[in-house]
């Protein structure tokens, strides 16, 4: 690709290699390596785990609250169900929901935020009021209200988390876009006659998207905790389906006789949140051009 480029360098002695792509920079970042490893492990667990452990919903009342051992690695719960099998099955539900909410909030947030910032005017005014309104209400309470109106259920849970989650990302993208609109490089492109849509996709959107993605990955941990929290309150996944939050809720019934029941879902949440935070930090570090 670089065949037509004349000899590299310009200032003698301070030659800098052309900047590597984002993925290559990320792959050299230690936080990203650890975070990605954790994420891959969780994903592998969710995908192949059910093959190793059978029947998350198979009850065995002869074997209630068994302690961890060779038969049941993480013990059994109050209905004699294998806790490891339920943790693995819960990974599918919890992480799947988190990824869906992440994707929906990111796309909605970036689209609405950059559009409001770039178009301005009455559209921006209305969108901004809506964002402020959503951010002003505690998101968990708002999600509770949504689930309360629609009734408990997994898809309602995702809808509630998406409705409350996009506003913060839209605000981040909107303020970035407003700043970018005034930038000299954008003015220069306008004066050269470059079409607005191209200025938007070339100069404004990439930066805004990166900003929103960083905020979104950081928010991923909130999403996981929010999902677990709503399920913990009994508003998410309905029994007997396994979900980390509802498993934690069940475990507290037996916290004096079977404390090991928190290990599976608790560790799962900790690992997922750590992975999301590490990846978010790495993204922020590696997308700052001044660090190139």
């Amino acid at each position: 690709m670089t065949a037509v480029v004349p000899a590299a360098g310009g200032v003698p002695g301070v030659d800098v290699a052309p900047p590597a792509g984002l993925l290559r920079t990320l792959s050299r970042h230690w936080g990203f390596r650890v975070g990605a490893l954790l994420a891959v492990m969780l994903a592998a667990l969710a995908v192949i785990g059910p093959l190793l452990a059978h029947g998350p919903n198979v009850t065995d009342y002869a074997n209630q609250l068994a302690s961890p051992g060779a038969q049941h690695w993480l013990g059994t719960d109050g209905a004699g169900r294998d806790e490891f099998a339920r943790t693995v099955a819960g990974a599918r539900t919890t992480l799947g929901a988190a990824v869906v909410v992440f994707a929906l909030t990111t796309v909605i947030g970036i689209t609405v935020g950059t559009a409001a910032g770039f178009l301005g005017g009455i559209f921006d005014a209305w969108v901004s009021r809506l964002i402020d309104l959503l951010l002003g209400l505690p998101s968990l309470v708002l999600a509770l209200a949504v689930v309360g109106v629609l009734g408990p259920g997994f898809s309602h849970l995702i809808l509630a988390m998406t409705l409350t989650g996009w506003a913060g990302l839209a605000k981040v993208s909107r303020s970035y876009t407003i700043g970018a609109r005034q930038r000299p490089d954008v003015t220069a492109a306008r004066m050269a006659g470059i079409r607005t849509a191209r200025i938007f996709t070339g100069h404004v959107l990439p930066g805004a998207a990166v900003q929103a993605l960083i905020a979104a990955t950081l928010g991923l941990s909130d999403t996981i905790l929010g999902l677990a929290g709503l399920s913990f309150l009994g508003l998410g996944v309905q029994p007997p389906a396994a979900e980390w939050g509802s498993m934690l809720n069940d475990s507290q019934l037996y916290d004096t006789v079977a404390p090991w029941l928190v290990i599976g879902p608790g560790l799962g949440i900790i690992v997922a949140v750590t992975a999301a935070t590490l990846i978010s930090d790495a993204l922020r570090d590696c997308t700052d051009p001044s660090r190139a």
Partner: protein
Amino acid sequence: MTAPLLQIRGLAVRYSSGPVVLDGLDLDVQAGECLALVGESGCGKTTLARAVLGLLPRHVAVAGTIELLGSDISHASAKSRRALLGKHLGYVAQDPYAACDPIRTVRHHIEEAWRAHGTAVPPGVIEQRMSGLGIGAAETRLRDRPHQWSGGMLQRASITAATVHDPALVLADEPASALDAELADGVLHAVRRASRSLLLISHDLRLVENHADRIAVLRDGRIVETGRTGSITTAPQHEHTSQLLTAADSIRSAARPAGDSHRPSATPAVVTIDRVSVTYRSGTSTIPALRDASLTVPAGEIVGIAGPSGSGKSTLLRIASGIEHPESGTVTFAGGHASAPRGYVMPVFQDPVASLDRRWPIWRSITEPATLNKRLSRPDRLQLASEALARVRLGELNPHRLPGQLSVGQCQRVAIARALIARPALIVADEPTASLDVTTAAEIVDLLRLTRQSGLAIALVSHDEALLAAVADRIVRIRDGRTAPAQRPDDIAADGADS
């Protein structure tokens, strides 16, 4: 001979990540003198000031000694240094607005000089000091916030704050570089008068020659020449000193290349602005930015627009660019169009680094205007970028670099290359040299003068009269939004001689 007030021996400063900034520097400031330390940007001037003040970051390796009043302060603790600052060592920063907290009054900042040492402010002293520096009615004006003061006045206030305790030495780091040329001399005069001894840091040899007793020239972290001001400026020994002098002169003097004069009336105008007015709204009040301002830019000419800060220079330039429209009056581009065709006017900005997309390799920024009407393949764009870079004398530069990997001067050349690729009829340049040091500024001015020879017109806004006199074919003066008729620089020089 008495011991020097400030004695620096073998000072070496090295950042953990980068190269050596100061490399075995020796410097003396005698009691009662003004020593000017002069050098290009990046030569280590500010690092020296920070070393003396103890403001270098922790991870920086410092070797050598800095003796103030006979004691070494190079590794002094923060506490012992605090007792020194203000009492024995005063500091005047480069940008007075950045040095002040915008929500505090000016008086608050000056009083800080006493508060820092836990003593009461003697009544009347501040007013007396301020009027000594030429600021009257100080009682009421001191209640203002920093942004309500002009740069020159606010810098006088920081000079007052730095000198109230009559420190043995005052350190002033480019105290006039954030100011208009007409104010710079006055501020240097003020800081010289208020200080017992002064270490004055500047990039401009000609600016300091009227104020300094001695001059030290700094290059790449070493002092290359020291001497009395007169001998340095008239008979420089070191090659670099001569370069600095030439650079400072080429911006100031009106020495134009022979055969470079244009007959104004012969060429058609690329843009004609006729009695335009613009007002800005600020809260409930309106501020007139332009009142019946007029400007004509003929093809192939450099028209300078001169005036103090806030006079409407930049607004006039935006009108000429067609990116802002006047409330009244007419703007006509060549061929009678009321709006500028695409790429007809291209900009060059004051902040070169910000004017390029920091995420884009420079080849993409440079060739963006060329992609207006046709899709270009990546190899074609790279080829085009290399040619454009060669035209602005950056042929060796790797077009894959990001703006952050370039020097400020290189970024400005890249911005000019981008402007040229659009094949504009007019380039509007808003203070294109204001963030560059003298040597680089002279190169940029040369480049602009060169591009003009291809029939391109340039509208050049600057507060630097000397620069405009050197390059402009005609100069339009603007004050409070009103323009005066254009003059040729020679006529202005003649007027000046008459009066």
